[in-house]
């Protein structure tokens, strides 16, 4: 179909592989390359098997291709800091799944439209994708003086990147609660739970606000959940907004789609699904701009 984005994935780890399976299904993407740096990578093997071109030259392999529209960077914060300026120079739209945060934080259901003309957008964190839109849904009803979130994820779906950079997770998520969620102040907590069978990703959102608005808040949150379900089908309200002592509490559970990572990895699924949603919207936007 016309308007398909020529896409590449940089970083063939768990996230890159899950993203590959989602992009292959997307009517707006033509996945033309999976690039990594380790020749024995499982992700590169899987991509080759699917008939996708592969490269072990990392960003150089990506830039060697002509006419790329979009690159999904699922490497790490440090590599992305080097990739970002080169992708920008080449005029390629970069979707950053690392905590590098070169570009603005984006949650598709909240602020994607504002940032489609930027060449780099950042996906915050998994906890941010799950909770920031709920805070936004509350703050569009009534001011939120303070938002706090607790993301609990299964130990087996927290990779070495998350583990080594746990402070970045809490700090990046906190920032997004304020800048995207609209809270005046915020805090983020992450907990790893090793229970077997693994637990689903769960998120608790607390917001200090005018709890007399609970009906309007519930309606707004309900609408937001529906908006997110359009790109993350396993996203659901576990505990509906509940007014308690000057604050509203809500809980979200995320079941993954199970594309590559198991269903308990809702934390990883939500970020790959959000990335694809961004690409699809960008494709429509680009089409419109050209047409």
């Amino acid at each position, binding site marked *: 179909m016309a308007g398909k984005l020529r896409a590449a994935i940089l970083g063939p780890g768990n996230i890159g592989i899950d993203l590959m399976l989602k992009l292959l299904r997307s009517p707006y993407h033509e996945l033309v390359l999976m690039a990594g740096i380790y020749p024995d990578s499982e992700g590169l093997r899987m991509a080759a098997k699917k008939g996708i071109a592969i490269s072990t030259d990392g960003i150089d392999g990506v830039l060697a291709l002509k006419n790329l529209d979009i690159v999904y960077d699922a490497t790490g914060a440090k590599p992305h800091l080097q990739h970002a300026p080169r992708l920008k120079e080449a005029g390629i739209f970069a979707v950053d799944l690392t905590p590098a945060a070169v570009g603005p934080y984006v949650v598709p259901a909240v602020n994607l439209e504002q940032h489609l003309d930027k060449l780099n957008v950042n996906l915050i964190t998994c906890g941010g994708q799950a909770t920031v839109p709920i805070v936004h849904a509350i703050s569009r009803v009534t001011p939120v003086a*303070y938002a*706090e979130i*607790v993301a*609990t994820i299964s*130990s087996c779906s927290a990779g*070495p990147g998350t*583990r*080594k*950079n*746990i*402070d970045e*997770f*809490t*700090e990046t998520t906190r920032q997004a609660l304020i800048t995207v969620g609209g809270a005046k102040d915020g*805090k983020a*907590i*992450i*907990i*790893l*739970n*090793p*229970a077997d069978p693994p637990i689903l990703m*769960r998120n*608790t959102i*607390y917001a*200090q606000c005018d709890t007399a608005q609970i009906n309007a808040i519930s309606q707004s949150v309900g609408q937001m959940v529906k908006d997110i379900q359009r790109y993350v089908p396993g996203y659901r309200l*576990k*505990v509906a907004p*509940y007014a308690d002592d000057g*604050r509203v*509490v809500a*809980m979200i559970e995320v079941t993954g789609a199970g594309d590559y990572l198991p269903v308990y990895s809702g934390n990883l699924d939500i970020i790959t699904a959000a990335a694809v949603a961004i690409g699809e919207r960008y494709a429509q936007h680009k089409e419109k701009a050209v047409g």
Partner: protein
Amino acid sequence: MKAIRIIDTTLRDGMHAVSHQLTPDQMAAVAAGLDQAGVGTIEVGHGDGLGGSSLQYGFAAASDFDYLAAVAQVVQSARIDVLLIPGIGTIDMLREAMQYGVKTVRVATHVTEADVGEQHIGFAKKNNLEAIGFLMMSHMASPQKVAEQAKLFEGYGADIVYVTDSAGAMLPADVKARVEAVRQAVGIPIGFHGHNNLGLAIGNSLAAIEAGATLVDGTVRGLGAGAGNAQLEVLTAVLAKAGLETGIDLYKIMDVGEELVEPLMHRPQIIGNAALAIGYAGAYGSFLLHAQRAAEKFGLDARDILLEMGRRKTVGGQEDLILDVAISLAGAKR
């Protein structure tokens, strides 16, 4: 005489028992008493450590740094220590705490997740802090697993590693098996942090020492999460009778209990029904007051909530799940 190092956590774990409401002045008064009684290391702050002040765990009466500043002003010879749970506290917070004379940091992770503390231990060592790896909820892992995780902490540069019975769920044999396994795996000193939900905080501390631990934690009047900790006055007397040197003056530490700590307590530190349920179920000690509040709100028995928290294999810090469990138990009742 063999020496045992005591870390006092009255002003950190004890905060759970008073919903984190001690004031900086109250902390300073107790810290001065502990210091004069010969306590060598004093842990200070919100019950959940740096950054713990939150809706999830309860806001403290003051900021981490107000507490540290107040305590630093009065302490003459003791080391000031902070707890840092990665995922709650951050290196930035530790960096700020260092400005108040903090000399020791205990990096606390769930017993199977030591690797989330690698950054924090590394930062502490680079900045000349004493770094302690603190393996919470040690009852939930086998002795081999505890030893493997202790070894990780040693590899990151930790000076000491702790077997921590956060739920007060271990029997003396469980403690011995874990400390013994850790002793065989690492070359650094080993500590034990007990809770009294099964009435074993002192007995388990002795068991840990017999198995090779050279540090144990205590709190004055036992003030702490759940049924509280190893009561420091009792521990001081027991270790003296066992021929072990702690450097703590028994009369003075007793007086700190009666004159300084008792007046601050919200309730007697006993093994109430819900606290016993925590030890029996193996749930995190600080769930106690949160479960009691939820039980009251939803017309439930706190023990049912805590047992369910144990069944769901919850870990430290999952206070938010209490509300979820209470709502589902209340729904099932209707």
